[in-house]
């Protein structure tokens, strides 16, 4: 396959960026999108040009490091019914000779570091603000000593599959990080271990979300449409319910 790329090149956080066109030849349809970029980077390196910087790690859709906006859709899901991560998107999803636009996540809270790499430490700060439970970690307790109802446990597990990739923020017209925050809130709020800090957690995490410059949620739904882990929009309602309840709890103040 031959692929024509238009890639966002930006030398560092301070400099202005622009779209640069490249032609990649010898692409196999079994390559992942990142392998296709590897191919281009080898070519650029041989030519003595600066290779394109992009984030990646596991390349099997579980770590949350990769993330590129491809043809205007975060992770490039486009018309495929199955949302996926960039590393799990394969070149067979594209036509031979296609022109593909490649851009970094764009959000006030995620400044570009270089090319397609953005700084997502804002997510870490949201987690540090309350995305944990406070216990004295000793030896692992007997699993059956804390029963968790099946329905809640399932919901917690589903929410816990969020890999923190940031596609939700990238896709949101408001640049809001509510889907990520709501996934973490729901995950902990559904489990017995999350109860003691449930209402203080929701307040501190939402406050940190806002302080980090994410936009406000207006329930548009683009986030859930690109989320590779299919975190549902209703987690945001769950967050809002807890946030409202926290107003009436001493613990939450």
């Amino acid at each position, binding site marked *: 396959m031959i692929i024509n790329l238009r890639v966002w090149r930006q030398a560092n956080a301070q400099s202005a960026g622009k779209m640069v066109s490249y032609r990649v030849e010898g692409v196999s349809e079994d390559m992942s999108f990142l392998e296709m970029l590897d191919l281009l980077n080898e070519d650029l390196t041989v030519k003595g040009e600066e290779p394109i910087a992009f984030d990646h790690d596991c390349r099997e859709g579980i770590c949350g490091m990769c993330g590129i906006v491809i043809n205007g859709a975060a992770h490039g899901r486009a018309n495929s019914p199955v949302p996926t991560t960039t590393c799990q998107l394969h070149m067979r999803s594209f036509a031979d000779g296609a022109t593909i*636009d490649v851009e970094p996540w764009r959000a006030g809270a995620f400044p570009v570091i270089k090319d397609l790499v953005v700084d997502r430490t804002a997510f870490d700060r949201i987690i540090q603000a309350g995305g944990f439970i406070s216990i004295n970690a000793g030896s692992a307790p007997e699993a059956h000593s804390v029963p968790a109802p099946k329905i809640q446990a399932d919901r917690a597990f589903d929410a816990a599959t969020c890999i923190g990739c940031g596609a939700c923020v990238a896709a949101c017209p408001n640049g809001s990080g509510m889907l990520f925050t709501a996934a973490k809130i729901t995950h902990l709020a559904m489990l017995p271990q999350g109860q003691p800090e449930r209402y203080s957690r929701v307040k501190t995490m939402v406050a940190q979300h806002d302080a980090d410059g994410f*936009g406000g949620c207006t329930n548009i739904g683009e986030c859930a449409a690109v989320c590779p882990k299919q975190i549902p929009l209703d987690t945001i309602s769950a967050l809002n319910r807890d946030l409202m309840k926290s107003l009436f709890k001493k613990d939450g103040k």
Partner: protein
Amino acid sequence: MAITGLIMVGFLLMHMYGNLKVFLGADAFNHYAHWLKGDILYPLVPSGWFIWIFRLVMLASIVAHIWSAAVLTGRAHAARSTKYVTTKRLSQTYAARTMRWGGVILLVGLIFHLLQFTTQTVQTGFTAGAEPYEMTVGAFGNWWLVLLYAVWVGIVCSHVRHGVWSALTTLGANTSPAARSFLNGLAWVIAVVLFVGFMIMPLAVLFGWVN
């Protein structure tokens, strides 16, 4: 945003219901219109006060709604200061996308509407001091005014379509994927009911079924 929005949707439903009284004839319609400004809640509040309390609540809702919208818009612009070169829309609706500018256009229409029928500053087909029924029939005898209202009410209903869903979700009602479909359906029903309910009256006047 959610609470003030829902207050205003409630008002729209009431307003629509009141408008339909036009089909009961001039006396019923005028009586209803005067009753609104008369002794509702009397003697709890002095006669004639209700309408002012009501207007105050509406004004407060509008101001709070616009203020929240302005804050959200400001945050959204700061959070997406660099635009994408290409954007692919996957799930957003037209209604959701036009909430902000639609809201501004809606406000301009509202100001015109109040100048026309509340203060009677803008007189279209009626003279100052006209009875409500006479005023309505006089105004909507103009086809261009009916057309203008159809567009405006359409914009209002589009705003309501996303607004009802979004407000209920913000208040925590979106509890499952099924609830998501239900809330979207409910928002559609309310928007369509409002559009039909509001447009029947001007059309009836225009076609001479009410005169």
